[in-house]
């Protein structure tokens, strides 16, 4: 990644802050006043925050156009003591989290946790899928039983409901 790539990301993030401010502004300036004695209502703080975000987005843009963000994090991974971006690692961790969201209300907490564990471990370079799944099941089960039995926090039992003896939902 050279300088142009860096400035593109900086531009995008600066515009992101600006857009967040504009979006917040649209909502904030349509809120009712209802100030009462204070003469400032529920819209005052949102408006101030929106204006500040627009200003900060603008400030970031100025920095992008005048030589890039100041005191930025080094672009070269070696300079940060890291290796270049590994997309597969990022994707496996993300996939684990999405799989958990998809499974938690059907397969239940324990199996969702096992899927999450296996995907995340894969993302961090583990190649022992069976071991990771096994550890995920054990960890998920321990957490499930501790929470449901001792802390009265209800977690979905899902497909394992017959095995878990009515614990959970």
């Amino acid at each position: 990644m050279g300088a142009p790539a860096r400035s593109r990301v900086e531009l995008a993030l600066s515009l992101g802050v600006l857009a967040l401010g504009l979006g917040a502004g649209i909502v904030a300036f349509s809120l009712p006043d209802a100030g009462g004695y204070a003469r400032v209502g529920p819209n005052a703080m949102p408006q101030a925050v929106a204006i500040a975000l627009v200003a900060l987005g603008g400030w970031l843009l100025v920095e992008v156009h005048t030589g890039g963000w100041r005191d930025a994090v080094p672009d070269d991974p070696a300079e940060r003591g890291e290796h270049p971006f590994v997309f597969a690692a990022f994707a496996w961790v993300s996939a684990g989290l999405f799989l958990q969201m998809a499974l938690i209300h059907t397969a239940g907490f324990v199996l969702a946790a096992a899927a999450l564990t296996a995907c995340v471990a894969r993302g961090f370079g583990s190649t022992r899928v069976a071991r990771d799944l096994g550890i995920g099941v054990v960890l998920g089960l321990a957490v499930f039983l501790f929470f449901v039995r001792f802390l009265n926090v209800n977690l979905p039992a899902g497909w394992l409901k017959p095995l878990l003896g009515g614990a959970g939902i």
Partner: protein
Amino acid sequence: MTETLQALAQGFGVALTPINLLWGFVGVTLGTAIGVLPGVGPALTVAMLLPLTAKLDPTGALIMFAGIYYGAMYGGSTTTILLNTPGESASIATALEGNRMAKRGRAGPALATAAIGSFVAGTIATVLLTLLAPLVVEVALKFGPAEYFALMVFAFVTVAAVLGSSTVRGLSMLFVGLLLGLVGIDDQTGQMRFAFGVPELMDGIDVVVLAVGLFAVGEALYVAAYQSRLPETMEKLSGSLMMSREDWRRSWPAWLRATAIGFPFGTIPAGGAEIPTFLSYALEKKLSKHPEEFGNGAIEGVAGPEAANNASSAGVLVPLLTLGIPTSATAAILLAAFQNYGLQPGPLLFQTQGALVWGLIASMYIGNVLLLILNLPLIGLWVQVLKIPQPLLYAGILVFATLGAYSLHQSVVDLATLYVFGLLGFLMRRWGFPVAPAVIGLILGPLAESQFRRALAISQGDPSVFITHPISAALLAATVVLVLAPWLWKAVRERRRGTDRAPG
């Protein structure tokens, strides 16, 4: 003074009940274990455990959280010395010398001076907290909404603008945090703001989801993408833990000096332990009779920063308990823990919940003793924790992180929000946006807004109330000076450089 001692004695009565001793022990043990894990800091630990405490008694739960808070500081030094991957930014200074000592086979004395120094500094700082808190409470009782609002503005600006590498990126994160804090129902009018009809958003964005998303999910994504393929090297804990007479002679002045630096820095909004640890490191390097050893494992360079770290973490509790102002991300999450029980830290808490507050302070004396025992004779146990393979470590962190968020409402929406904050955390880490201002903005923003509106309600809408009250005016003026000073200084310096260069 006698009143303070009476209150403290009452506090020991609370902290020494078997159940509260147990919570304190659980807290410091958990804190040490988690502090040892690379990539997990006290802020994340307290955030993950927040939803689980709904059914615990507040005194026990808060004693446990405080234990986690300073236990993690002790545990962090073990990781830094043996692994050279600082678990938290405050440990970077220790990494410079501690890891070098370990590489030269002196891991034992390095761990010992860190643990004993933390104990000495932590205990002295707790004494200072005990003496200082009632004085601050006296002053704070005179504060009205205008003064509180000015104080919060001061805290916001110092944490966001003055610390960190970039003023504009720090302020951006502060306002993102403030915006997130506005989501949900307005307490005073019942007006719905930024909820877009999503039921999960109507209660507001929970600090658990934000903090866990930024610290755990963001951290996991970042480490996976940029650090998971690095070779790991761990130093062996060989030889004795005993410090030689020479080690003691060189350590104890460093501990005391570091306490004197760390505690005051903790009490002001200076973002926690980062600055005092570096200051202590620089001071020890300057005063040392063996400056040539710095960079190769000088024991003062471990003793000082570690002591400063612990002294400042006790200092952080002064503004948190007496004024309700969090000055670090962890303190903001501790504030949220109080709020979960309907308690608002501040001068009134000392009057209405004296037993709880003093029990908490007394538990810190006990906790420091427990931590010294946990961290010296049992050090071998914590070294085992370091041997957990990285893939399983991060998988475990994410299981607990998602559990914390999911158990809030038993809702997948919270898990999706958690991932969004995780992506945000990834971008923030990669592109140099600080996390603490966002967390502090989310927690403290709604309080600042309500103080602002109360001040104006009292003054019938006259905004001059913020500058006619002397304390409020002074705080706002100090805020302006803090923001402008670096700019002015830079401008003056550039001008001077300009005249130097001018032909003459």
